[in-house]
């Protein structure tokens, strides 16, 4: 097929163009994947990566796009996902397609059950699932229900399911987005192992360090066009090089300039202990103590499940867990926050880590969302003033530079970065003194991240305290003035910006407090 390449090609997508009414999602995109490589696709949110993969896997059937898909030297015309799977192309979506109530084994064979005379042959299924689980390195009983294993292991089950379909080309959409470092590493190692066995992978990811680590080549997509394909080993590609391709310019710095102006301590938490909502004697926060100063950006580092979100949400009107003990002191006075309403009225704001499940009503439009936490601000005698509402939303759209045709657009239609801006606008409109941001840039592309950082810094410059919870250490290091570390519900240390680095943070995040 391609005369210039040395290794044989497994897949070539030629001049793929896909249009939606009014939008050209893909325009003449080319993609060339060689047999047995890990091929990364990079691009900002909305660049067209997922659309391209949906074209490939038959979600958008043949005829709904222009261009050719050449797979294993034949032009393919997939009518649906079943057709592409039959050809050995399996896609694993960002949101896992597993059924929580069913067991690992039942999930692996769902839709593909081994049968004898129409009756499921469970002995055969068990034998094969033990074999498959061994191949993905998952030491779990095949009868364990999916809901009882973590997201990292669920991801492995998805891969086992793909292997069962004798996959030749595995597509992973943001496979590590929800995983902690350990699980991510395990998954990446597994991909390299599969590569050794001749399985080709295409991986979409925002985590550039992972891409740099495991991929052989990278195709960069920007604004629905394929920009370039980089050979990782040959071209000496690093993260900055990828970013340059993705945003079409070089970002000198990943963080805007910011000179902190830190005032006096205004928010203090003492002896904060909270129990798990269901398990009575399990404490998710153990005597946590910390403080925030005006104009300060305070980072909270910790592994997934360390209790960062639990701490934030329990402070925010006890919206998580059962309160056991502790004091909140704001502006020198002790305050009691028993409901979210009270927390908001006392000047707290909390941006959740799970935007879609907890942060947004996806049925709403931008203007309704913007005023949702402070309806008082646009109403008189409990009647909403719609003109004022429109004006408020319009002001935030301009100042945060939210990309949308109008503020009457549904939030479901926005990209992750723009959704996050709307959520930020919602909390900025409550005029909080302390804003807690839980994973503020999860699932957001590089360009939008930079803008979000700018917003956070601006809030701090206005004299507000900002708490940033993040799994990405470079983000915390770049943004925070001070960083607390959490391990198993306890605060294990605090480092100033000057003394913090990835290494000593990681040490504190994984070890119990040495001395109180």
């Amino acid at each position: 097929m391609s005369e210039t390449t040395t290794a044989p090609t497994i897949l070539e997508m030629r001049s793929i163009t896909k249009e939606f009414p009014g939008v050209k999602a893909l325009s003449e995109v080319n993609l060339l994947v060689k047999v047995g490589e890990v091929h990364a696709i990079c691009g900002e949110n909305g660049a067209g990566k997922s659309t391209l993969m949906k074209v490939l896997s038959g979600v958008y059937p043949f005829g709904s796009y222009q261009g050719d898909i050449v797979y294993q030297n034949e032009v393919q015309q997939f009518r649906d996902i079943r057709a592409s799977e039959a050809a050995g192309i399996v896609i694993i979506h960002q949101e896992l397609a597993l059924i929580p109530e069913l067991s690992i084994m039942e999930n692996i064979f769902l839709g593909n059950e081994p049968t004898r005379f129409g009756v499921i042959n469970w002995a055969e299924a068990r034998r094969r699932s033990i074999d498959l689980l061994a191949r993905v390195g998952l030491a779990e009983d095949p009868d364990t229900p999916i809901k009882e294993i973590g997201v990292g292991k669920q991801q492995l089950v998805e891969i086992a399911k793909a292997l069962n379909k004798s996959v030749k080309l595995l597509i992973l959409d943001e496979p590590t987005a929800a995983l902690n470092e350990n699980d991510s590493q395990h998954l990446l190692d597994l991909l390299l192992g599969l590569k050794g066995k001749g399985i080709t992978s295409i991986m979409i990811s925002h985590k550039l360090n992972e891409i740099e680590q495991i991929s052989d080549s990278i195709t960069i997509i920007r604004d629905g066009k394929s920009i370039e394909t980089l050979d990782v080993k040959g071209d000496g590609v690093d993260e900055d090089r990828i970013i340059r391709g993705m945003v079409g310019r070089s970002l000198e710095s990943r963080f805007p300039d910011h000179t902190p102006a830190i005032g006096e301590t205004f928010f203090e938490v003492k002896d904060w202990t909270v129990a798990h909502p269901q398990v009575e004697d399990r404490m998710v926060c153990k005597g946590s103590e910390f403080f925030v100063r005006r104009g300060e950006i305070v980072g909270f580092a910790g592994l997934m499940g360390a209790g960062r979100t639990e701490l934030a949400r329990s402070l925010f009107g006890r919206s998580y867990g059962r309160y056991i003990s502790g004091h909140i002191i704001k502006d020198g006075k002790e305050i009691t926050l028993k409901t979210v309403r009270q927390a908001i009225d006392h000047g707290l704001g909390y941006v959740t880590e799970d935007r879609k499940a907890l942060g947004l009503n996806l049925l709403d439009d931008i203007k309704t969302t913007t005023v949702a936490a402070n309806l008082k601000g646009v109403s008189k005698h409990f009647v909403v003033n719609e003109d004022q509402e429109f004006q408020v939303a319009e002001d935030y759209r301009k100042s945060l530079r939210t990309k949308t045709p109008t503020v009457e657009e549904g939030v479901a239609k926005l990209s992750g970065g723009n959704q996050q801006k709307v959520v930020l606008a919602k909390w900025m409109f409550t005029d909080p003194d302390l804003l807690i941001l839980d994973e503020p840039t999860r699932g957001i592309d590089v360009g939008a991240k930079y803008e979000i950082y700018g917003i956070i810094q601006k809030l701090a410059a206005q004299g507000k305290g900002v708490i940033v919870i993040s799994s990405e250490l470079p983000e915390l290091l770049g943004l925070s003035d001070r960083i607390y570390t959490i391990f198993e519900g306890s605060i294990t240390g605090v480092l100033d910006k000057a003394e913090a680095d990835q290494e000593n943070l990681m040490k504190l995040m994984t070890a119990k407090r040495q001395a109180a």
Partner: protein
Amino acid sequence: MNALKKIFGGDIRQFGMIFALVALIVFFQIMTGGITLTPENVISLFNGNSYILILAIGMVLVIIAGHIDLSVGSVAAFVGIAVALAMRDWGFPSWMGVVYGLLLGALVGAWQGFWVAKVGIPAFIVTLAGMLLFRGLNQLLGKSNSVPVPGDFQNIGAGYLPEIGPDTGYNNLTLLLGIVAIVAIVWGELRRRKASIALGAEVEETWVMVTRLVLICGALLYATYLFATGRPGTSFPISGIILAALVLVYGFISSRTVIGRHVYAVGGNKHAAELSGVQAKRVDFLVMMNMSILAGLAGMIFVARSTASGPFDGVGWELDAIAAVFIGGAAVSGGVGTVMGSIVGGLVMAVLNNGLQLLGVGSDWTQIFKGLVLLAAVAFDVYNKSQGKPSIIGLLLKNFQKTPEPQAA
């Protein structure tokens, strides 16, 4: 087609329903040889359906909040018999009967709201239990007999606007009401337009607004004419006035007030609403309570119209009300729906019922048609959702344009 779309604005689903309603009326008008749009028929259609439409107003709020209420028919019957007994045995005057009925409705609603909001039992179960419970109480109180209600009480269900002023050949109050409504609509539209221009928001072209106003006002004028020229002694029914007032009040509450916003927020994403400071439990409690109050009102209107409360009042009402809400564009999963849409949905069902009856179609076929209409309306909605964009235009021009799909990240 595009012009139509512009005139009726964003909510294509509701436009589709209004379109269907008009088409149905025209169809029956032709098929019945003009009986459908006679004053007598329109008045009786309103009288015979106002209680279902009142239930639909409460039901749409319950459904927007993500719940359902199966007990409304039984609650209506229970309140109806209790009020009838209070007036007969305790000598309550009619006005006190009405107040008593509303209070009873509130009490019943507080009971159901308690189980739904405070204890956290799904409304389906709570109101299924309520359906049995209050039906039983109705029969217990009334000893399974009918209890008549006094004449002046019958006014709320069977009364009409009185004749006053000079003899114009029309019912003067009905005329006045129609004219006030038309003026209010035109004034409101102009004011909204002015505010939008002041804000710098996009406004529709002038001819679009004018056409819409002419259509709406024309329909209103015609309705006014029909109601004002009824048989002597009949005119716009009192129950219709109660209904119109409720539509205005609840339409305003649902779209423009803080509590209304909270209902949509809780139905759309309960967790997100709670984390924005909305007290979801309070919202749940209030929508359930409100529903039972309206059920009590509907029960009283029905009793007033049929001059007595009986053991089988309100059987199957919950289904009519729920069907009206879903035909009117509400989503089963909550967060979506409008008061106006539910009224239109209820009218579609009412016109269908009435038209088929006029044609002499039996209740067997009437039920079959009603079932199919409900299914078709919701199927249309589901189809649109699967296509990403709700668009009746897209449906009609399907072969001429590419299938719309949600844009992927």
